[in-house]
């Protein structure tokens, strides 16, 4: 076996305390990784360590504890910078999560660069977090929102992109990997095309950062966002990467403490990037934990992770295809981690409850992507999403449980 993950799966699983807990005397099969991932012990320990040993507010503290907290917090910035291969530490802005990052972008880009009638392109498969902030710009700034359609396999209809681009198109904000379909979008091509027309591109990497190699310089995206908790880090942490030249020009999203250089009652001089975008005391322990999570993740080769998870997905896909009464939503050849199921026999919510009885955690619902559900004419799907700590044996149990559930309803 050449794949390190496959070879060391037991060791990897032992790093995640929840995977070794019993529920009703049976292990938990966690297949809701697209919603959030489990945390390795090193991440959990880092939170405790912060509170027990150096809890203090960051920046401007002249005492040791504050310096240590600041150092660890800023260390994560450097870890993230290297992880996604950004050029500068200050291109990394910490947020609450991908939603927060996208809200920051929508608000700040509108105030800095957009004028009434300017156009923003998104796709039909976006998460609500990459739809609703732009709809707000439609309401308050007179921006026009344009949507790139999706075909029956759940792939972007890329040939339409050029038709949608006008001289008023200023931004394309696009998901890298769909959280409800699993489709891997050809963002390299989209970025290249956009730049021909001087359009800025935002990549929502919430579902790709933990499954594929992300190199922002190679991609040449202008902005990229992701959530920390989906890459084995704590909740309430997120990243916004932006090219330095743009971040410097952009107005702050939130104002207040920590983002200023000088304040008088009449006016304020803002701090430089990245602090300009980090108003208020941040989630210090969370960001430190995110650094630990990425360090842990980087112990493995991303190619091994990708290959192993692909094997899980292919195995599950083939097994599901053998079950009568269940179909897969999202059938692109280029997919990662996500298996979205729909059945005329069992409603996704019933499936979710039936699987839960066997300690199998899947997600039933619209996955915060109602427009793509509408596109496929269904209210919801039952979604299993895999991580590199999952196993073929777990998938076998999942398939058996699926079969049992379908039979109950026939």
């Amino acid at each position, binding site marked *: 076996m050449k794949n390190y993950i496959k070879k060391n799966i037991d060791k990897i699983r032992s790093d995640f305390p929840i995977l070794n807990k019993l529920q009703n005397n049976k292990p938990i099969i966690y297949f809701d990784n697209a919603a959030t991932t489990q945390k390795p012990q090193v991440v959990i320990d880092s939170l405790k360590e912060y509170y027990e040993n150096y809890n203090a507010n960051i920046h401007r503290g002249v005492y040791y504890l504050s310096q240590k907290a600041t150092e660890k917090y800023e260390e994560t910035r450097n870890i993230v910078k290297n992880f996604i291969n950004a050029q500068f530490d200050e291109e990394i802005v910490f947020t609450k999560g991908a939603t927060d990052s996208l809200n920051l972008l929508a608000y700040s880009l509108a105030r800095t660069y957009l004028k009434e009638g300017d156009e923003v392109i998104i796709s039909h498969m976006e998460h609500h977090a990459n739809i609703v902030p732009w709809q707000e710009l439609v309401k308050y700034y007179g921006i026009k929102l344009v949507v790139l359609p999706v075909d029956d396999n759940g792939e972007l209809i890329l040939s339409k992109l050029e038709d949608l681009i006008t001289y008023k198109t200023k931004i394309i904000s696009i998901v890298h990997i769909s959280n409800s379909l699993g489709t891997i979008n050809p963002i390299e091509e989209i970025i290249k095309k956009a730049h021909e027309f001087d359009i800025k591109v935002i990549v929502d990497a919430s579902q790709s950062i933990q499954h594929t190699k992300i190199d922002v310089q190679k991609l040449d995206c202008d902005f990229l966002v992701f959530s920390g908790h989906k890459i084995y880090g704590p909740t309430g942490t997120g990243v916004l990467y932006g090219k330095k030249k743009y971040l410097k020009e952009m107005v702050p999203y939130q104002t207040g403490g920590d983002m200023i250089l000088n304040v008088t009652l009449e006016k304020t001089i803002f701090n430089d990037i990245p602090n300009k975008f980090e108003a208020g005391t941040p989630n210090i322990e969370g960001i430190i934990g995110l650094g630990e999570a990425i360090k842990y993740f980087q112990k493995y080769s991303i190619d091994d992770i990708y290959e192993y998870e692909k094997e899980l997905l292919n195995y599950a896909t083939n097994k599901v295809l053998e079950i009568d009464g269940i179909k897969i939503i999202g059938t692109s050849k280029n997919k990662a981690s996500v298996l979205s199921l729909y059945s005329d026999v069992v409603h996704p919510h019933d499936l979710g409850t039936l699987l839960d009885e066997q300690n199998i955690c899947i997600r*039933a*619902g619209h996955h915060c992507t109602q427009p793509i559900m509408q596109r496929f004419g269904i209210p919801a799907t039952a979604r299993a999403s895999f991580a590199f700590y999952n196993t073929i044996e777990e998938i076998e149990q999942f398939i058996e449980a699926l079969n049992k559930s379908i039979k109950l309803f026939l």
Partner: protein
Amino acid sequence: MNDINDLYQQMILDHNKSPRNFKKLENYTHFAKGHNPLCGDEIDIYVLIENNVIKDISFQGQGCAVSKSSASIMTTLLKGKTLEEAEEIYENFHKIVTSKIDDNINLDEMGKLAVFAGVRKYPTRVKCATLAWHTYENAKNGEKEITITE
């Protein structure tokens, strides 16, 4: 440990598969739409009320087994009842699905409604069971607005 058969009892599976009164009424006096945006469940309830009596009641829509069977069973229970009798049934239903598992409810007196006792163990599914009943209440009270049961 929960027993899944408590929730998915034969009666629920049966009503899910062959829902009763699953149609639009030709003549109706009351109508309401129910919608649970969280799961996408949608239901239309049609009621014909004459002289204080539910002469006919039907539903249409889509949803999970719990919501569909709840609607179906509700129509069979309420048809032919006076509004006062219907109110009592509604209250009993509500009592069952919102009670605690160890609350002392005499399920023997609850008739068909007893089938919903299993729902209590699944807090995330209670809203599925109540959608139709809330929508009926809205229809009866002349409110046509969408119900959100959260």
